[in-house]
């Protein structure tokens, strides 16, 4: 099996074995949210918003990510009944976020992000934009973990917990993705 195929398989079919406190509370939170508890919904939102943000960021322009995060959570709330495994909220939300990103490109007129010199003071600098573009050009297998690690600041274990993958597969993808990113950015030390 080729390296990339193996990585993909690890990425797609891996299951996390670590049960965190968050996981244990998931079922309760989901059930409370199902009963219309806004407080429980807020808890889920605060726990998973960075994950959804990172996944969306790896696919759609930064300026539209914030609105899409809100849309993803509203869609999740409406479809909470379709969540079969109450302990897999993260993977479920990640799937909704990916679908929304695909839908975004189906309905959205083509647009480009503003050049750095035209952007407002809250927007990243040119170098950051260049790194961002380099990450986005990577395969999805590497793109998502790198976004969640470098931008949202999650560790490999946290990524694995939230996305429902094994921490081993996340580590492998982070390592390989970082190598490819270094090559793209021309950073010294990248393996040939």
């Amino acid at each position: 099996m080729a390296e990339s195929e193996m990585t993909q398989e690890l990425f797609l079919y891996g299951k996390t074995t670590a049960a965190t406190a968050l996981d244990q509370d998931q079922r309760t939170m989901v059930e409370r949210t199902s009963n219309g508890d806004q407080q429980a919904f807020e808890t889920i939102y605060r726990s998973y918003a960075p994950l959804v943000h990172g996944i969306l960021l790896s696919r759609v322009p930064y300026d539209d990510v914030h609105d899409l995060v809100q849309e993803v959570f509203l869609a999740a709330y409406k479809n909470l009944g379709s969540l079969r495994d109450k302990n897999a909220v993260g993977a479920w939300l990640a799937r909704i976020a990916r679908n929304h990103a695909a839908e975004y490109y189906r309905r959205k007129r083509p647009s480009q992000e503003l050049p750095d010199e035209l952007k407002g003071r809250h927007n990243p600098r040119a170098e950051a934009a260049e790194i961002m573009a380099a990450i986005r050009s990577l395969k999805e297998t590497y793109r998502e973990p790198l976004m969640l690690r470098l931008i949202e600041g999650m560790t490999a274990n946290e990524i694995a917990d939230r996305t429902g993958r094994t921490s081993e597969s996340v580590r492998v993808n982070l390592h390989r993705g970082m190598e490819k990113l270094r090559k793209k950015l021309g950073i010294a030390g990248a393996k040939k």
Partner: protein
Amino acid sequence: MKEDYLSNKTGTDPEIERLENLLSAYRYQETDVPLVPSKIRNMVIVEPKRWTLSFSFGLAFAAFAAVVVGVGIWFLFMDNSSDSSPVLIAKSPNQPVVTGPIKLASTENIVNLPAIVKTQKATQQPVMAVLRSKRSKLRIYIARVPEVKKAPVVLSKEERYAYSQLMLALAITSEKLKVVGDTINRTDERTNPNRTNNR
């Protein structure tokens, strides 16, 4: 690159830290939680139960089967009944669709019948009929035009005289032709006695 820092954020890696700092502008900024519209919030979220789904699928399948059986029976009866009462479609006299099949029981159902018969006499060709049963099932027939019986010929006095004169002329002409033929044959026998007449 130190893998520990990349995976667990333990230790230091200046290069990755620099990337993190640069990309921090993109980091998620905590915002207010979206307020779920009251219309949605008050909606009871009911998880579909397995038996409900099974029942729904079963019901849908039964309905589908019933429709299939019904359509089958309908077609069965259609075949038996459609030939008994065909109706001709002939919207204009020029339309080459002019006659009904042999199975037509009466002409009551035929539309525009005089134009149809006229067209038949003019063409004397097999014509195509498009028939529609009362249940709207389209059928196409090819039928040959029935023969038209000739009326008895009645001649006037002048016509009878002209006819007798013509017959007389034909008889005289044929006699003369016979004499000419015999003369030629005898001449041939004289000039060539070995030749046999094969006629």
